[in-house]
Every structure is written in structure tokens, then in C-alpha cells.
């Protein structure tokens, strides 16, 4: 209330000047504000901010990845909030089969959170949509494509239809099991396992720097990030507790992950769910930068011409959630002769690859359109090598390549470039 009074201090003289009838009505409306527009009963939806968002003139619309991909008003942030509000108050009945499209809209977000930069209320739209998903889940209305992901997590411990960590042998990835006395736990993301060359490169870099680390692929499970996105918090917490145990067993001083999604999940999302990982968790680019600063890693070789001119695609989770846009650049600046080009939308203004959040499950073609948009932005730099530091980005960008692009453009992880310069 104090905050509201401060914000509306300027209205003091206006209220004083009102005639009695109007003032009475005004004060009644002020008091009844929540009751007037908030639904009765129990719900988890963040009604206050859904209303703030749905009545906003869409101040973030120009930077909303899904809207820019689809180019339909239906995808606009304020409309998503409006539908979230109507689903919550029952104006649109979520239990009716004919309203499935309205429910799906609650999942058509790539979690890039560009909106938060421009939001007059300083929230992200996905943070609101997640609260609507909570209510949908409570009503047993989780969409099938989300249920499929939860089933996969429960059956395979990963977000794949098989336990992707078990494929390490056939992919030639070295597994290092902990002796309980690690310096570092190299925490490999489920999606990173799709890029064995990246994982191998990271292992090579850690070894070269003389780091004592483990990978623990025999017991490794997903961080639970997908369950957090879907808001199946029971499953998410189960994975959080399992990861907490696994991390503690390593005795590591620091958990270093190659997947920004894992870092965000292991830190802020676990914290919000009431689970604290006592160990520091960072993305591997931050760790590599430390190793360089400490003189433990040096890049002395020029990379081949093929990789000598690269374009940086900042993973939005590193740039905006972990607030780190310097590590990648600091590392790349240590590679002799490397020409770095920056796309127009970079650092904390980066546009998403399309493959984060729930959008790629809810509407794959939407996610691909978003990926194509990003590929087109990256192509404008004239460089044919797109460099990132996130398996989901590397996956998403690959979906965004046209047949012609596939012949000319290479998408690489920073680790793959670094081992070429060792």
C-alpha cells in the first residue's frame, strides 16, 4: 500500500479537489480494485501482472521472438497475458476441447526474456505464463506435448527418448567418475550429449589446464529444467534433489556446465523451489576465462582460415540470465588472428535461437521461424561461422539454416574453436 501511495502521490491534490460523490466512488473503486477483477477461489496465476501486461500497449512487442517469427497479433505478449487472464477467470473455459489453442498459446514462448528489458513493470512474459501453467497443471490440463517431456524425464532421466548419457561410449566421450575429491564437476547437459565433439573439446581443455574433474556420466541425470518450464514442480524438485546429491558426492568446489540452461536451473530455479546447491555453479565460458586469467590455458596457434572469421551468437541465458557478455569475448580475444564479427542484436540485446522454453514443443514450426530470423541476422555479418556456447542455440540455429545455408555455414561451440588454437 505504501508503494502505491508513493507512486500516486501526485494524485493527492486531485483527490482533494473531487466533489463528495465522486470521491466516494473513487475511494470505493480504489479499495475494491482487487476484488473487482480478481477471480474467486484458489489459483496460482499472477493476476495483478497479467492485468498489467494485458492492458499495456505491448511495449515489448518489437523484441518478442515468437511475435517476430509468426507476425500475427495472436502471438503478441499482451494478448498472451489477456488469454492467460481469461483462462484464469473462466471467461475462456480451459477444460473445453475447443479451447485447446488458447491453452497452447500459454506455451508458445521461447523464454528469451527480451521483453523484460522493455517492460515498464520489469517482468518477463514467461514469468506470468508460468503461473497460468501452474493452474492448468492443477486442473489436469497439461498439454500432451508437455506430458511427453515429463514421461521422457521419468523414463530416461533425460529429455530424450533414451538415456542419452549412456551413449557416451559409442560417441567416444571419456567418462571420469568422481573419487569424491574433485576440483570441478564438469556437468554435461542432456542436449550437449548431442554434440559429442563439444563435450570432448571441453574435456580436452580442462585436462590441458590441469584441472582435476569428473563427468559422472554413469549416474548423470537431467537438471530438471524442462520440468521447471512445464511447471511440473514435483518432477522438477525430484531432479533437483537427485542433482544435489550427485553434486555433493563429487566434493567439487565448482560445478561447470556447458549448458546455460543447466546453470540457470541449478542456481536460481532450484533456489526458487527451495533447494540450495551449496556448490558454486557457473557456465564453462566463465571458467575458461578464469583459467586463462590464471595462466593455465593459452591459445598460441592461429586457427585455420576456415574458422578465422566468426560471428558470435550470445546464448540469451548467458547474456540476460547469467548477465555475462564478457567471458566469451575475453576468451576469443586471446586467439591469435581471429576476426570476430558482431551481429546487430548481440550481448544482452541478443535474439533467441528459438529452441529455449516450451515453444519448440508447442509449435515446432514457430520455433523454426524464430531460428530462421536469427540465422538471417547472423548472416548479415558476412561471416560463415556462427559461434555459440549453448547446445540449445546450436540445435536451434541448425534448424534455422536453409538447404543452401547448410553448405556454407558452420555452427560451432566455442570449445570446438578453442581446441584448434591450443
Amino acid at each position, binding site marked *: 500500500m505504501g508503494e502505491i501511495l508513493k507512486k500516486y502521490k501526485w*494524485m493527492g491534490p486531485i483527490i482533494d479537489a473531487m466533489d463528495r460523490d465522486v470521491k466516494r466512488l473513487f475511494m470505493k473503486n480504489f479499495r475494491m480494485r482487487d476484488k473487482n477483477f480478481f477471480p474467486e477461489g484458489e489459483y496460482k496465476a499472477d493476476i495483478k501482472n497479467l492485468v498489467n501486461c494485458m492492458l499495456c*500497449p505491448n511495449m515489448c512487442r*518489437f523484441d518478442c521472438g515468437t511475435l517476430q517469427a509468426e507476425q500475427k497479433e495472436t502471438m503478441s505478449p499482451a494478448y498472451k497475458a489477456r488469454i492467460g487472464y481469461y483462462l484464469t477467470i473462466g471467461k475462456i473455459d480451459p477444460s473445453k476441447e475447443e479451447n485447446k489453442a488458447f491453452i497452447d498459446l500459454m506455451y508458445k514462448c521461447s523464454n528469451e526474456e527480451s521483453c523484460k528489458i522493455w517492460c515498464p513493470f520489469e517482468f518477463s512474459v514467461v514469468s506470468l505464463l508460468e503461473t497460468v501453467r501452474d493452474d492448468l497443471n492443477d486442473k489436469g490440463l497439461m498439454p500432451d506435448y508437455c506430458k511427453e517431456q515429463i514421461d521422457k524425464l521419468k523414463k530416461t532421466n533425460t529429455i530424450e527418448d533414451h538415456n542419452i548419457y549412456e551413449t557416451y561410449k559409442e560417441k567416444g566421450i571419456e567418462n571420469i567418475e568422481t573419487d569424491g575429491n574433485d576440483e570441478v564437476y564438469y556437468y554435461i547437459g542432456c542436449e550437449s550429449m548431442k554434440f559429442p565433439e563439444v563435450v570432448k573439446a571441453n574435456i580436452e581443455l580442462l585436462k590441458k589446464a590441469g584441472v582435476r574433474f569428473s563427468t559422472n556420466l554413469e549416474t548423470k541425470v537431467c537438471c530438471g529444467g524442462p520440468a521447471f518450464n512445464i511447471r511440473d514442480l514435483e518432477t522438477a524438485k525430484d531432479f533437483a534433489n537427485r542433482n544435489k546429491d550427485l553434486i555433493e558426492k563429487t566434493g567439487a568446489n565448482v560445478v561447470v556446465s556447458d549448458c546455460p540452461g543447466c546453470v540457470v536451473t541449478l542456481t536460481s530455479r532450484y533456489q526458487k523451489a527451495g533447494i540450495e546447491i551449496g556448490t558454486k555453479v557457473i557456465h564453462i565460458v566463465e571458467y575458461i576465462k578464469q583459467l586463462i586469467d590464471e595462466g593455465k590455458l593459452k591459445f598460441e596457434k592461429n586457427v585455420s582460415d576456415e574458422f578465422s572469421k566468426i560471428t558470435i551468437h550470445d546464448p540469451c541465458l548467458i547474456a540476460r540470465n547469467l548477465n555475462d557478455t564478457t567471458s566469451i569475448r575475453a576468451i576469443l580475444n586471446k586467439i591469435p588472428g581471429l576476426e570476430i564479427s558482431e551481429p546487430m542484436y548481440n550481448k544482452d540485446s541478443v535474439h533467441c535461437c528459438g529452441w529455449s522454453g516450451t515453444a519448440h514443443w508447442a509449435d515446432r514450426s514457430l520455433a523454426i521461424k524464430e531460428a530462421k530470423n536469427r540465422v538471417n541476422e547472423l548472416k548479415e555479418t558476412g561471416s560463415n561461422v556462427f559461434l555459440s556456447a549453448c547446445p540449445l542455440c546450436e540445435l536451434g540455429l541448425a534448424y534455422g539454416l536453409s538447404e543452401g545455408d547448410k553448405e556454407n555455414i558452420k555452427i560451432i561451440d566455442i570449445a570446438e574453436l578453442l581446441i584448434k588454437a591450443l
Partner: protein
Amino acid sequence: MNIENFELIYKDSRVIIKDKPKIKLRLGEIVGNENVSDNEIDILAYNKDTTLITLNWTLEGKIAALPDFIVWPETPEQISSILKLANEEKIPVIPFSEGSGVVGGAIPIYGGIILDMKKFNKILEINDKDLTVTVEAGTNGMNLERYLNAKGYTGGHIPQSLYTSSVGGWIAHRAAGQFSSKYGKTEDMVMGMELVLPKGDVIKFKTIARASTGPQLDKLFIGNEGTLGIVTKATLKIWPYPEKRAFISYAFPTFEDSLEATRQILRQQIYPAVIRIYDADETYRHFGHIEKAKDSVMVVFVCEGIERLVDLEATITRETCEKNNGIECGEEPVEHWFETRFRVTETSSTPTFKMVADTIEIGFLWDKAAEMYHSVVEAAKNVKGVIMITAHVSHFYPNGVGFYFTFAGIPPQEKSDFQFYQEVWNTIVKAVEDAGGSFGHHHGVGINRSKWMPVEWGKAFDTLKAIKNLLDPNNILNPGKIYESPWEKGGEN
């Protein structure tokens, strides 16, 4: 059907489409099935623009109007075919882009086809020597400005709706931005255009700095609000990104002093990009934290461009303010304005208090500008339920100004929010017209002001209507706006 759960506001005179499946099929043949929809989820998304009363309705579970179809064309030829079909079937076509209009211009009040221009979103060419950018009309303003900034230019058109509006919307509504004293308004910026006429002809106005080749027909379409044609592409002026900005602010003891100072600045042919006068109420609201602004009228200036010119403009601006009793307040108020100018939160809060609010911008010559301001404030205050009427002056010319009034009120119990809204609008517009001003400066006519077109235009309105009839004999392009008023029954104080 969910739509039935919503109260429909504009429900009279809706077009009756006898064979909707056939129309949908034919639209699909034109734009592809993926680019046409009559799904509820899409129909509901296009029921309104950003007209503030529609936000109250949104919260109350009402919808402004219902389109029958949404189409997303990608070429002028597709638009042409859609318009030909609409003429054959006598179906309204309502151009839409970012939906940021605030006078109802994109509300499909009779139903019909919403023609969304979002897919016309390419920035085609920058010509450095000519200082032009050619851009498709659906391009978002901020995305254009960011692109220009990255290449070392500015478009100079920075309205508060920059984030939420499109190039086509600017042209349709003859828009003006916050930096317009230096860079001009939309009509000063457009150098060439491609558009589709109501019967489907695609015409182009060549890009040229100036010509004497008969009447300026292109200007007819700047401000046509999607009633005479649909702009698909435009070539706009651009400028090198300013090398220096000077932030200046002064507090004046009276509104009249502030007007006089700014008038003298313009008279000396000094054009700060931004000039904004806030009346005492708005000064308290926006600059209440600044001690020197207490009980005063705040004016902020931004001079920008090459350094030598900026320095000269800043010097003359300061001298003129001081000659007119201005007290210097430094850069902080301007920095505050820069930080907060896009932080639009009131649109979200006022409806939750069941308040009805809006902004009305009007044009006036210098001679009676202060008098007009006071007469509008007095007239609005006399409407039962109005609790606030304030203004700032946002646009300046050597010959006149653009005022921007903000009103808010609680509808009295005997009136609906819509009746109250119309009453305030009509009262303010009448006061402006009575005082000899122009009822709109840069938001356009739309629905909210069309009732007053005969007053504003006099006999010339007949000519305008004749042109509309010539170009659009079936009245299919954005009907219910400019030439006719669904508000005829709206309250007038």
C-alpha cells in the same frame, strides 16, 4: 464458442457474409491457407487497437468489435486481389499493422476482413547520398530506428508509440514524434510511396526531393487512415545520427511565460529537436521531485545534431528562457524524461480503478494558444465525473503548437463508461473547435473524432467525401471512420 461470453460493443450494422466458407476459400487462394484465419483465437486478437476505452472493456470482458477473417498478405498483388474480392462481395477491409492507434482507426466496427500488414516488414535499402531509407509499411518503428542507429543514422521519428507502431501506421495517421521540431512530421519525411487503392490498383509515387508536376496527390494518402488506400512501401528521409545532444530545462512561473519563451525560440529559427512544456499539474506529477519546479511550469529541451550547431541552439534557447523568467533546472529533468518516456504504466492501472482516461492532442496557432488551453480545461472540468484534466505542449512551430491533453474520470452512476468517454471527448473537441483550433494534431480521426469532421472541414468535407466515393464507391476500405460517425448518438455537453 467463447466469443458469446463477451459483450460486443460495436454490434450494429455488421456486414452479413452469406457464404463464409466460400470467402475463406477464396482468401486462401489469394494468400495461402496458412495466411487466412477465422479461428476464434485470431479473431479475438484483432478485436481492437490501443484506443484507451478498449482497455477498460478488455478488463471487463467486453470486446470492441469482431472481424470475420484475418488475412496476412505478403505482396501488393495479394492485397489487390483481396480488395477486388471485397468489392465483389461488399465486405469491409480494415488495414491493421501494430494496432497502436488510439482513436479506433483499426477497430473492425462492421466486421469484415482485417488485413494485417505485419509481413511487410523488410527494410529494403538505405541510400547514404540521398539520405533515404526504403522500407515496407508493416515494419515496426523501433526495429527501423534500431537498424538505422546501427548504421549511423536516425529516422528522427520517435513517437511514444515507437515500440508499438509501424511505418504504415505513421503514414496512415499523419503521425508526429517527440523530436519533430527538428526532423519534422510524417508528411515531411515521406519521399515516395507504393500503395494499393480500394479497387485494387497498385500505384507508386516516385521518390523525389521536390517536384512541380501537378497537385501533390501523394499527400492525400498521408493521413488517409486506411480509407483511401493501403500503403505497402515507403521511402523516408533519414539523417546522420546526431554527434551531440544538449539537455536543457527551465521552470517558469506561469504557463504563459513558458509559451512565450518557446515561441520566441522558434521565431529565431532555433529548432531544438525536443521541446515539451508541462502545465503545473503535469509538472507536479512528472517533476515533483525537483525542488526548483515546485509550483512552476517545467519545460525540457533537447538540442541535437553537429556540435557547433547544438552549442548555438543551446545558447539561444537558454538566453530566451532566462529573458522570459525561466529558472534553469539543469540536465536532470531531461534525463528523467529520457528514462521514463516509454514507461507506460497508466494504461494498465486506470481501468483497474474503473477510471476512464484518454489523451487528446489538438493543434492551435500561437495567437490564442494560452486562451484555448484554459477554455479546454474549464470545459472538461465541467463534465460530471472528470477528476483530472492536464496538458503538456509537445509540438512546436514558428506559427503554432500542438497541445496534448490528458483526462481521467469516474463515470457517474447514470452513465456507462462509454457514454462518459464520448461526453468528455465531445466536450473537449467542441471547446477546441469553438476556439478556432484543430481537433487533432497527430493521432488522427478514427472513430473518436469523425463526428466532428463536418465542423473541422466545413464545405471542404464534401470534396473529401467525393474523393472517397470516387476511389472507394463500395465503401469497403475501413468504413465507419473519418467520413461517418458511429458516435452520432454520443453525448455532447
